């Protein structure tokens, strides 16, 4: 079924509600997206008809649950242009990245090796590498940003050398909105023989991602940021690297044979999926991917581009508003981060909330980037496929109201 983006808002029951007597203007999509009826229905249907533990059962419900669970693995594989056995289910992007760091990074890194990350990383793609660096004696090096909020590719090129073993970077910055040139960065890293890990949390759901074209080694994203349930994440890894990579959790289902003193693991992806997995959440993720595809990428991209450009312009027109990240027209995703001079982001967000406008204020789990930008916190409006120009106008009006209220 093809869905129309103009009426997509109606597919999300939560958006019909009023907040503080105002229509809900949900602009915190980079933190988590809302869920369409189809995803909620898939969860309900699973629990009302098919719920059973997977892989282990010989009975009808278990077969149904297993078939649906493995069906979503194939669906995810298609969604990102990969093979099914390259798709691992995790709890979220954070878990995915930790598993790569500990299960792969810690295996291949030697003292003196270098890990390259960027100053725009979310803590989830930063702290795990700090930890692995500490553990292995590898050195953590940072790619800086330019004044425009883009990665400094020249400096990136200089950082890369024969000691670089792992390069990890975000596809899209959750603060600046920058879409990094990940394909080029991957080529450059591969040219010095480094492995490439991409944090796709802010990319998936906004535009198509293609493992064959990117050619990265690992790619991580979360279900809850692409209109799916909480509690489910994805880790893609190239088949031969998943063979090398060690499981981080051990238990039921991931083993071939357990004797008292020794255990033999299954092949990937099963060897990583220990214990009872988030089965209902995987099935909900499948419904979310179906939903995205029923709307279609070109409609989603056009809508988000339009909304982001309008938000950028309307905010820019307010005296005292400072916007971070690349200009409109650059490679930029669906969010606008800003500050209103003289008013703390927390106070801005509180005023906006009284107008029904939900935005995020804070460091956005990117403290090193905040330090680089020379601010302690910012306000961020981030968009999903259901946002429209009305939302953006409400945002701008609410920021103007805040300005008036605080008399700045």
């Amino acid at each position, binding site marked *: 079924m093809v869905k129309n983006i103009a009426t997509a808002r109606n597919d999300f029951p939560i958006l019909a509600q009023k907040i*503080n007597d105002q229509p809900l203007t949900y602009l915190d999509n980079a933190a988590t997206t809302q869920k369409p009826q189809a995803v909620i229905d898939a969860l309900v249907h699973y629990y009302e008809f098919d719920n059973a533990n997977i892989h282990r059962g010989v009975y009808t419900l278990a077969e149904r649950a297993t078939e649906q669970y493995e069906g979503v693995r194939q669906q995810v594989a298609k969604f990102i242009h990969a093979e099914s056995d390259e798709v691992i289910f995790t709890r979220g992007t954070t878990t995915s990245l930790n598993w790569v760091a500990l299960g792969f990074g810690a295996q291949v890194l030697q003292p003196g090796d270098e890990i390259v990350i960027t100053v725009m990383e979310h803590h989830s793609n930063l702290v795990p590498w700090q930890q692995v660096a500490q553990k292995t004696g590898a050195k953590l090096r940072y790619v800086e940003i330019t004044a425009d909020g883009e990665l400094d590719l020249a400096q990136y090129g200089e950082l890369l050398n024969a000691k670089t073993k792992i390069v990890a970077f975000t596809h899209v910055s959750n603060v600046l909105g920058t879409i990094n040139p990940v394909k080029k960065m991957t080529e450059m890293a591969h040219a010095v023989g480094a492995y490439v890990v991409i944090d796709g949390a802010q990319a998936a759901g906004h535009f198509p991602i293609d493992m064959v074209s990117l050619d990265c080694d690992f790619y991580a994203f979360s279900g809850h940021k692409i209109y799916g349930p909480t509690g489910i994440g994805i880790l893609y890894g190239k088949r031969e690297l998943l063979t090398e990579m060690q499981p981080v959790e051990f238990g039921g289902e991931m083993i071939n044979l357990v004797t008292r003193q020794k255990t033999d693991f299954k092949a990937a992806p099963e060897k990583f999926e220990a214990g009872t997995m988030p089965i209902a959440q995987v099935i909900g993720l499948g419904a979310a991917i179906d939903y995205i595809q029923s709307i279609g990428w070109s409609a989603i991209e056009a809508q988000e581009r339009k909304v982001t450009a309008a938000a950028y312009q309307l905010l820019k027109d307010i005296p005292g508003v400072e916007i971070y990240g690349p200009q409109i027209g650059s490679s930029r995703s669906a969010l606008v981060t800003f500050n209103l001079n003289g008013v*703390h*982001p927390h*106070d801005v967000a509180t005023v906006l909330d009284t*107008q029904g406008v939900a935005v995020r204020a*804070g*460091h956005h789990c990117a403290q090193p980037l905040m330090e680089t930008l020379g601010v302690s916190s910012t306000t961020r409006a981030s968009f999903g496929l259901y946002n429209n120009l009305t939302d953006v106008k409400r945002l701008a009006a609410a920021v103007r109201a805040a300005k008036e209220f*605080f008399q700045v």
Partner: protein
Amino acid sequence: MSLGNLSDLYRQLILDHAQHPHHRGELANANQTISLNNPTCGDVVNLSVEINDDQIKDIAFSGDGCSISQASASMMTDLVKGQSTAQAKKEIATFLEMLMGNPDEKDVDDLGDAAILATVVKFPARIKCATLAWKALEQAIGEAEKK
């Protein structure tokens, strides 16, 4: 465009303290310095206190935060400067109870300007902003007592 109950949260007194905070800065002869941050939003309070003979001789704060955290720090320093540490500990307890929604009306009167922060209870996401400075002082006194 209605601004709802905003003026409940941002009373004029709070805005005054936020815009012109009292005791802002660092003490030259502090014997306790504590930095606390609110990891959720990044608010930071650096408190410097001079505690001698179980008395808060002088106090100042710096750092960065929203109007609630700044106003709260300003009001707190007004209140406790010159107090005995025992008295200050009592005020802190009263304040924290008030922010948890259990105000003791009698004690709250002793809080001075800070009593007005009771309205923050209606904005749960802002409670941590209001309590940050007070928790820093609690730690500072705790450290002083260890010596």
